[in-house]
């Protein structure tokens, strides 16, 4: 049931789990509740977990914050882990979020294919040390083989 501001319990839970960052609102305010609920409905285990966690948070009219959510996590660790999976899965596959990740890391927000990344040539100079060690070991073995 929506609160006074029109937000649902799931919206508010998602905002607590993944708060706003760098111009992006929290996961709930970003509008991910629908995709989270849809994702959950495709898997009975996830659906039950989400229902359990939301039930544990109590009435939709009661405000809750991080400490309330942590108390729910302590009482329902397995269900809560599934809800985290739902939240992260839908957050980190959202194009708006990936654009922010790209800005901060160099990760490209586009799908991995068909563009990929540059395939730099292998540098054979990297092998000098490992080959040198092998030659030294081989020489040591040869010397010990021929020693009296």
């Amino acid at each position, binding site marked *: 049931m929506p609160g006074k501001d029109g937000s649902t319990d799931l919206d508010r839970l998602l905002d*607590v*789990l*993944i*708060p706003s*960052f*760098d111009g992006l609102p929290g996961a709930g305010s970003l509008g991910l509740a629908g995709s989270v609920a849809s994702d959950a409905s*495709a*898997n009975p285990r996830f659906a039950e977990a989400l229902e359990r966690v939301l039930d544990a948070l109590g009435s939709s009219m009661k405000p809750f914050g*991080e400490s309330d*959510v*942590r108390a729910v996590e302590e009482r329902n660790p397995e269900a809560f882990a599934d809800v*985290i*999976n739902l*939240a*992260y*899965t*839908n*957050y*980190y*596959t959202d*194009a708006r*979020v*990936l654009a922010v*990740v790209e800005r*901060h*890391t*160099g*990760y490209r*927000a*586009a*799908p*991995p*294919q*068909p*563009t*990929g*990344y*540059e*395939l*730099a*040539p*292998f540098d*054979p100079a*990297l*092998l000098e*040390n*490992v*080959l040198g*060690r*092998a030659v030294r*070991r*081989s020489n040591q073995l040869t010397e010990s083989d021929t020693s009296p």
Partner: protein
Amino acid sequence: MPMTARTNSPADVVIVGAGAGGAAAAWRLASSGLSVVCLEQGGWVTPESVPSLRTDWERARQRSHHPNPNIRNNRWDYPVDDRDSEINPLMYNAVGGSTIHWGAHFPRLRPNDFRVRSCDGVADDWPLSYDDLEPYYDLNDDWMGVAGLSGDPANPPRARRPFPPLPLGVGGVRLASAFDRLGWHWWPVDAAILTSPSGSRGSCNNCGPCDLGCPTGARASTDITYWPAALAAGVELITEARVRRITMSTADQASGVEYLDRSGQVVQQPAGAVVLAANGIGTPRLLLLSTNADHPSGLANSSGLVGRRLMHHPTALVTGVFDEPLEGFMGPYAVSILSQEFYETNRDRGFLRGFQMQLIRSDGPLGAALGGYQRPVPWGERHHSEFFRQFGHTASLTVTTEDLPDPDNRVTLSSALVDNTGLAAPHVHYRVEPNARKILSYGIEKASVAMREAGARELVVHDLIASAGFHLLGTARMGHDPTTSVVDADGRSHDVANLFIADGSLFVTAGALNPTSTLQALALRVADAIVSGGTRAR
């Protein structure tokens, strides 16, 4: 039991499974002039359907394309009863089998891996040597396409790799330098990935998630390597065909197989020889499903070893978190460098045999947040700072161990689960054996030393990756003695003269290296034995 709807024309050979081993055997047999039918319970996977073409590719990895069939729940799959296993078996069912969803790390076993009893007084020697298998390794390399570099001082000389090695990546260079300072072996891996175009296959473009499929065709899978040639040679490939038992004409002669076609009808496929290439879980499952009055405990099971000696390669993971960005989201995730410094037995270490360390680059954003290789990113106020502290800043070393065979690690038939056709699911019983536990502990210590030497500020250790059951080995082992092995050195059943196995079930011991190149080489060798044995449809 449903009645037989039809009987197909006889073939010289029927192969069950179109994956790594089945495809290689199919091509070799058909190229030698035999008529071959291959039955595959999955279908074709098209390049356009590869999830890495979509923004939500990481969701697919968690759901529809998860490597665990129990999570993926594709209609081509069968469930695996893994409640009694410390490691979850992983596989894919399609034309190409599990090569559709693999990392393409392509090492060969080392010569001593074939003689563990002789070297270390435990387990068993194989009935063949590295030298026996070498020409088949070479042939298979040609078909799969291998990028790498010959000259690895830890391995026997081998032919020049036709494609140059993949770039190591920032993390790979760091770890290679650390290994150098420690005086430890490392080498760029052999990868079944093209680093330049060849024929209809494109070059790797360093995208990362090889496990989800490769629309460029750079990463090998047998649907694009062996299968076009096998079909051209005349193999009849029947997809969405679930084999439910091997049929017999006499107590020691198979007459073919019985399968359910895509409409659920029962079909008989007569053949002069039957080759099972359904992986180390599917093959013993089928043998156990094929009981009859002459073989009450399962077909080809007079030794009692069908399904036993399951080996998975227990794997630990040490992840380093670095201050500097390592860009591990770039590049084939599973292939960069490996170290075999601690591969052979040194009794001072307190265990037998050893382990490989393999560099894993890193995950995409979702995998990083969920904590695939590192710790899960916490929710709440610290979420974003922790995410950006870790994402792109990690590299991991696997510790993949020798897995000495234990008869109690086994595949049986489940009394609790059936597949979508009503056949009993395989029930996997697996515990990490004590020697492997010791290797894991030692390996974690050494991988941690390497990570610290490379400059990692923080280490995250996974003592045992339960979700790393990629390797399904040993459940129908080869051997000379019919009382202690299921098949002979040619992969032929000791009990059923025209029944052969051509997959990871054959392994006598596991080594500590990824098995695909070895099981494919074995499949080619088994095919040659069938050809030289003069098997014909009758």
